[in-house]
């Protein structure tokens, strides 16, 4: 296979673009896709201070690397959840990236200040993944608010977003479909959240990381058991092989139609239980959490609810960041 531009031997085939690229032209392509996402969804500008949430995996480290390459003002944020050797290795990789970029990495010592995530999940009687989600979301926003960052960026990619859209549609969770977008605007104490890699597949991101010699943690989190997400990704990748461009079209056309207002009315069709009762999030809000004062969907935010299950003799966990 030859590079579509220079006819040199290609390093990656991109059937969805009917293309193949050599290293140089693939890296150009990658950069253009990130710039296009930032521009077309109005994510941020070079005046913004961007907090990049890093986990040590390929997506978040690639995101930090490319935003730095594109001369954006970035700082990394790593949350140490105390998942044994996995956390130690992932933290070290984030620290290495910070050093190589010459950028600051902020670390939230959650496991030391509050509890290892597994202990918290057990105390709160929640799954490990949902507990981790609450804790991460909380600190992404809290650190950005307290340290004066305008934007919180995460490494979600086209596969993540297409799989999520598919999952929500399969379950007719239209209230979630309505909220899905690569930019969540700032509102009432909630910082703007963006996904600049939303136009790129996992394979393209892994190729970028490989070609730039970015060392990332290949292992899955040992506590992650989200086989449903993997199932949807595999289904989409099988369709994609037979019909290149389908995954891209499925997700990007959803975004374009939504932006144009063609999907208005989705939120009015909240999920309905068989008995006719509506389900979904509590209406109204965001409110101010009565415990920590940060935005919340109810009287007490999810973070304070779950950390409230820990031994009360501990220091109040939400004061640590």
């Amino acid at each position: 296979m030859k590079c579509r531009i220079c006819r040199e031997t290609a390093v990656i085939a991109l059937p969805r673009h009917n293309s193949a690229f050599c290293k140089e032209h693939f890296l150009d392509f990658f950069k253009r896709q990130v710039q296009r996402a930032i521009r077309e969804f109005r994510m941020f500008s070079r005046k913004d201070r961007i907090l990049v949430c890093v986990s040590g995996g390929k997506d978040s480290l690639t995101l930090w690397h490319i935003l730095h390459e594109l001369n954006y003002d970035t700082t990394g944020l790593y949350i140490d959840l105390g998942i044994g050797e996995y956390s130690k290795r992932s933290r070290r990789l984030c620290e290495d990236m910070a050093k190589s970029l010459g950028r600051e990495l902020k670390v939230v010592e959650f496991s030391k200040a509050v509890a290892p995530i597994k202990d918290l999940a057990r105390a709160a009687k929640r799954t490990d993944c949902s507990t981790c989600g609450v804790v991460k979301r909380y600190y992404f926003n809290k650190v950005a608010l307290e340290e004066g960052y305008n934007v919180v960026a995460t490494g979600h990619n086209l596969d993540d977003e297409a799989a999520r859209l598919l999952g929500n549609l399969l379950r007719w969770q239209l209230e979630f479909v309505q909220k899905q977008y690569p930019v969540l605007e700032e509102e009432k104490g909630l910082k703007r959240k963006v996904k600049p890699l939303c136009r790129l597949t996992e394979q393209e991101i892994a190729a970028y990381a490989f070609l730039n010699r970015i060392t990332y943690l290949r292992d899955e989190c040992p506590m992650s058991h989200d086989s449903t997400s993997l199932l949807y990704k595999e289904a989409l990748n099988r369709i994609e092989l037979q019909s290149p461009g389908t995954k891209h079209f499925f997700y990007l056309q959803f975004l374009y139609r939504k932006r144009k207002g063609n999907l208005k009315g989705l939120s009015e069709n909240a999920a309905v239980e068989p008995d006719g009762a509506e389900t979904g999030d509590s209406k109204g809000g965001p409110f101010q959490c009565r415990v920590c004062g940060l935005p919340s969907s109810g009287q007490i935010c999810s973070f304070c609810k779950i950390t409230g299950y820990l031994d009360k003799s501990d220091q109040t966990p939400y004061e640590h960041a």
Partner: protein
Amino acid sequence: MAKIILPDGKTIEVKGPREIRAILRRLNILENTVLIVRGDELLTPDRMIEDDDTIELIPVISGGSLEVSHL
């Protein structure tokens, strides 16, 4: 024989020359779910492997990803 390091870390041997795409099909590995690596080189699935090659198939699909909703 060419050596193939599979996404799960196991190694198999394959008689070369052979097109990588055919090997992936035989192994039931979707070509959009791996990077095909030979040394410090990335390969496209149409490339041929020879008997002395060592090819690594690096998985690229990660599992559950945290959704960063506002609340």
